[in-house]
């Protein structure tokens, strides 16, 4: 392939001529500084290149070196616990090499070439294998068994394979495909813009529990599902995403900081090694991959970062894991697209975004799903994708929000008004929705409680009633309400403050198991029902609201998981206190 010559430099966009033989999405190196870039438009021999590094000091006439290979990620042991930039360069290694600031032209591969991993074969010589079959495993971290799969497109008989300590570039297995012998290394590459193959998609019937009460109880996301969390600045997108990354019952987490703050990534780097997974008791970092292309890092690499992240996530899905990917924020990705598109002088669509915004967003979320993986085993894997969206002024008519809502099944609507009152998570309970509620119903009824939806439905009804009653109060005052309506207001407040409100920074409150969520809400509904009877028998709301048990209800969230009976016992207390109210004859 021929070396090209730069004819134009405009910010992250470089145009080169003489690029005969190049293909779309091929990686190139720009100038003798060897800045990494990707071809995003080809017109004859003229290629437009988005450059993943700062282009200051680059000029017309400098060379462009094609590589002939598309932008790809390196897949293999060593991914977990890594922190990469948008094009999978390890940020820790970059720091070792270049210091505290990111300089240009640094080339470090995504996976360590020196490190040796203990490989244990799972197939024998002579065995027939097909794509997706597990050749062997590496215990990558205490939490993750890294399964080395037969790469897509390779089928045949195992010639030789043996246990041992290998680097990712050593050959661990040879496969006779009939047309020759393929050498299999632990290191595999995959082009980021092409989804990895699977056998078929399955219905998203299993909930992914997140430990966040408003999510799990009211607006659940399922394993393999998609969700979005739009909201104005400071409303809690990042905190929610961090909470999901910490407490979701997924086996692998891929967290993409896409065009957001540097300190938020530092926060994850400090916290995750210290926090332990409630299920395994091991540090959360042991199942996490981080991609950090912060807002001040080159904008083209930001565009690539979501693809880098989702390809890594698919790779673990293919091993049969439940994977959850968080992208904070997809708006910054869309803006990167817009910036490049503007420089290409493409015809702008809404708000200057390129016309293909919607299709790019859709095909990104389409890579989520619960699937049957390749391989004889028929393993099941899942990839859930949760994207934050940052619309200007919090305005949901924003093109990125709209494009996202067209494809995702869960909408957690963050609201400034709630955030200002420090009601966290500031997810609006009336406008949010989950289309998975029906899918996960059977699972919830079998595994949580038979009356789960009765309780949950009643709570939601109370919240809806509250909204209507508040309108009335605003017009005519509280006095005008009946006792029963006043009770609705009291209990709805309890649901909001004692159940929905959840402080991410409180050591206990930060995570609530679904079991505990159910018991908490059941207590509140029990209080409502008992109070309703009491009112029918003449009790007043002011008496009910003065009951000492209310304080115990308010503090349920702070009771640790291992003292669940303490929360359970509140129910009897409620019955007792209400029935002992004066004027109530039982």
């Amino acid at each position, binding site marked *: 392939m021929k070396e090209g010559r730069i004819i134009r430099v405009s910010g992250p966009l470089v145009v080169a001529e003489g690029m005969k033989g190049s293909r779309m999405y091929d990686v190139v190196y720009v100038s003798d500084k060897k800045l990494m870039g990707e071809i995003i438009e080809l017109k004859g021999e003229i290629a437009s290149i988005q450059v993943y590094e700062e282009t200051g000091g680059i000029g017309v006439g400098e060379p462009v070196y094609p590589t002939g290979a598309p932008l790809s990620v390196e897949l293999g042991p060593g991914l977990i616990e890594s*922190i990469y930039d948008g094009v999978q360069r390890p940020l820790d290694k970059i720091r070792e090499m270049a210091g505290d600031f990111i300089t240009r032209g640094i080339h470090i591969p995504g996976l360590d070439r020196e490190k040796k991993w203990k490989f244990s074969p799972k197939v024998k010589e002579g065995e027939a294998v097909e794509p997706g079959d597990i050749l062997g495993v590496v215990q990558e971290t205490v939490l993750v068994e890294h399964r080395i799969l037969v790469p897509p497109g390779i089928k045949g008989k195992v010639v030789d394979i043996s246990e041992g300590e290998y680097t990712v570039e050593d050959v661990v297995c040879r496969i006779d495909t009939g047309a020759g012998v393929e050498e299999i290394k632990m290191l595999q590459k995959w082009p980021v813009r092409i989804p990895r193959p699977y056998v078929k998609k399955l219905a998203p019937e299993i909930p992914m529990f997140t430990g966040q009460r408003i999510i799990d109880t009211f607006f659940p996301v399922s394993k393999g599902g998609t969700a979005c969390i739009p909201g104005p600045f400071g409303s809690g997108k990042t905190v929610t995403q961090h909470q999901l990354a910490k407490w979701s019952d997924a086996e692998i987490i891929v967290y993409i*900081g896409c*065009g957001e*703050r540097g300190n938020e990534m*530092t926060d994850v780097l400090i916290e995750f090694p210290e926090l332990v997974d409630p299920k395994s008791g091991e540090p959360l970092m042991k199942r996490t991959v981080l991609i950090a292309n912060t*807002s001040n890092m080159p904008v083209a690499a930001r565009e690539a970062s979501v693809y880098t992240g989702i390809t890594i996530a698919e790779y673990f899905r293919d091993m049969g894991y439940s994977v959850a990917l968080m992208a904070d924020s997809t708006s910054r990705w869309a803006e990167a697209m817009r910036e490049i598109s*503007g420089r290409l002088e493409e015809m702008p669509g809404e708000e200057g975004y390129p016309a293909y915004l919607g299709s790019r967003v859709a095909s990104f979320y389409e890579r989520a799903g619960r699937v049957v993986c390749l391989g004889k085993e028929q393993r099941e894997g899942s990839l859930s994708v949760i994207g934050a969206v940052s619309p200007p002024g919090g305005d949901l008519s924003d093109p990125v929000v709209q494009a996202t809502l067209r494809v995702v099944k869960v909408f957690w609507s963050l609201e400034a008004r709630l955030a200002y009152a420090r009601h966290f998570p500031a997810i609006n309970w009336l406008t949010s929705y989950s289309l998975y509620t029906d899918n996960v119903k059977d699972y919830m009824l079998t595994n949580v409680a038979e009356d789960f939806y009765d309780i949950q439905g009643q709570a939601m009804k109370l919240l809806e009633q509250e909204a209507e009653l508040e309108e009335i109060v605003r017009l005519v005052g*509280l006095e005008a309400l009946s006792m029963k309506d006043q009770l609705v207001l009291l209990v709805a407040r309890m649901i909001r403050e*004692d159940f929905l409100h959840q402080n991410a920074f409180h050591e206990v409150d930060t995570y609530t198991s679904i079991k505990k969520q159910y018991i908490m809400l059941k207590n509140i509904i029990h209080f409502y029902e008992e109070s309703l009877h009491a009112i029918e028998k003449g009790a007043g709301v002011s008496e009910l609201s003065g009951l000492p048990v209310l304080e115990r209800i308010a503090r349920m969230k702070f009771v640790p998981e291992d003292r669940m009976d303490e929360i359970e016992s509140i129910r009897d207390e409620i019955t007792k206190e209400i029935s002992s109210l004066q004027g109530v004859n039982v």
Partner: protein
Amino acid sequence: MKVEYRTVNDIAGPLMLVEEVEAVKYGELVEIILPDGSKRNGQVLEVHHDRALIQVFEGTQGIDIPETKVVFRGKGIELSLSPDILGRVFNGLGEPIDGGPEIIPVVKRDINGAPINPYAREYPNEFIQTGISAIDGLNPLVRGQKLPFFSGSGLPHNRLAAQVARQAKVLGKEEKFAVVFGAMGITFEEANFFMEDFRRTGALERVVMFLNLANDPAIERIATPRTALTAAEYLAFDLEMHVLVILTDMTNYCEALREISAARKEVPGRRGYPGYLYTDLATIYERAGRIKGKKGSITLIPVLTMPEDDKTHPIPDLTGYITEGQIIFSRSLHRKKVSPPIDVLPSLSRLKDKGIGKGKTREDHADLYNQLYAAYARGKEAEELSVILGEAALSDMDKLYLEFSRKFEERYITQGEYEDRSIEDTLNLGWELLSMFPRTELKRIREEYLNKYYEKFKKGER
């Protein structure tokens, strides 16, 4: 010898097109020599074949096509740095304007800087006591944070910024500190107010000023925050100082950026601001922070006036999306003579959680501000309701909340320009106000702290 080009072809607004150039680099510094011999600075915005598009910092007035000479300097815009910059005043491009000598550089740095590797960052967690309750108690600032002031024209944001600069300290520490002050398009009077304040408190020799005033060339404003932050990085990470950077007014900066964008006929984003405004602002704001293994820090307070007091205007909006919180000024509080007129509900400090608590401020700090927020929010709701229905229509509890929110504005938020409250005082004041509620209302506070503080202040009140 550098080539002098006399091939200026097109001049439009702040932009100039030079043709038949060779080996020009993107981002390069350009020297423009006018027919009268005077010099201006420019920067290459785009190169295309043999044409270079240049933005001229001092404006294009007086530049002509046949006579003007252009020299490409082969490097980006650099700032000369040495410890001698302390106490000095520069223009927006970093040239001395105080009549003092040129800086003999120890190092020269490109004003665009380079992104801090996220892996190299140290999480900011050292509480800065500003002595202002609305900040310390509710929206604490920590070293290395970027916390902007969202204000409106005519509101006392500069006074508050000066008060922070005057009073800010990290408890129990005496360390090298400096203030870097970047002015963009503010009046001489405003800049002078800061200068006088620094002089009076004897801080002037620890201050570096970069001034681009209202009557200075507008396009130079694009460079000003970058030169200021380049100086700050040098002081913080080379000389190990704790640097407070005040940039005022970012709105003027953004307007200069819009002017360039319009002149380039780019597809405008919202309200005519370029689509890359977010990224551009991020390359400024993200230069604040701390770095592992380095003693110094950069704490950044950008000040901006919200056009029409509108928080959803792209300038405050995109700023809020990048910075680690915001302090919002309210015109209605200002009218009510609440001073400083900080609207605490939409204000926020995102880094507070790791900067406060036991051993930093006090164990009860987090629960306390959560409760104060919740109570004030409810009080404000009650106030709204009472405006429509009259106070009599409120429940007894709501009346109490209403009373709380009034006292809170009067006693907690309001304080003097020279009143320096200790964090202890601020926290106690919070308890004092909360003690008007029955204990069961204080749901956001842990039992142990209620036991320890609530009872004490409840009694104290009687």
